[in-house]
């Protein structure tokens, strides 16, 4: 069964460093998403991406964050200058269409630890 994959599974970085989290969405999906989950808290939406553009973003997704689809298979989340409060699990998701009723499939997540 097709699935969303994410790398690395765990990333440790120093505060102020740039990190890039990588995702390979399901191959025929056109819409891509990033969510994050701070330890012990709810899963929160960050951004959605379609046709090489951000289609929606939350207030969390500030100028420190960017997303890119550098090739036909990868979808990346970059944090330019990490802060301690960026420590969280980051989940990538993809869906076939952007319809309200379409299912989003989640990857296993990348645990980001900022020291």
């Amino acid at each position, binding site marked *: 069964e097709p699935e969303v994959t*994410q790398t690395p599974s765990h990333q440790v970085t120093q505060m102020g460093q740039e990190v890039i989290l990588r995702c390979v969405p399901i191959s025929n999906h056109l*819409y891509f*998403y990033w*969510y994050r989950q701070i330890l012990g808290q*709810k*899963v*929160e*939406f960050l951004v*959605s991406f379609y046709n090489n553009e951000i*289609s*929606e973003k*939350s207030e969390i997704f500030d100028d420190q964050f960017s997303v890119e689809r550098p090739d036909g298979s990868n979808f990346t989340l970059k944090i330019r200058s990490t802060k301690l409060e960026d420590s969280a*699990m980051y*989940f990538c998701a993809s869906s076939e269409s*952007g319809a*309200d*009723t*379409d*299912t*989003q*499939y*989640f*990857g*296993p*997540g990348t*645990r980001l630890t900022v020291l």
Partner: protein
Amino acid sequence: TQLLEQSPQFLSIQEGENLTVYCNSSSVFSSLQWYRQEPGEGPVLLVTVVTGGEVKKLKRLTFQFGDARKDSSLHITAAQPGDTGLYLCAGRGAGTYKYIFGTGTRLKVLA
């Protein structure tokens, strides 16, 4: 701001018992999904409901979407230790791409 409240927050029951988890909001959702999440892993989709009043069954799990599409429930019949985990509901409003996640219900089924 759309919020999804789940109840109960924690539930510990004996194997073989039945249980119901609730997911409530004051907002209307176009679709609602239920997930199960294991520690350190991503949410795994159980079901998507899209029609008010819709009922879906997945083996011993029964999911219902409220008539007004503001709430949902998950009923587990004859719970087993393998059902232990964190259950999340997530709703999506019309015209938006994002899912709003609930606060989660942590279920523990004792053998």
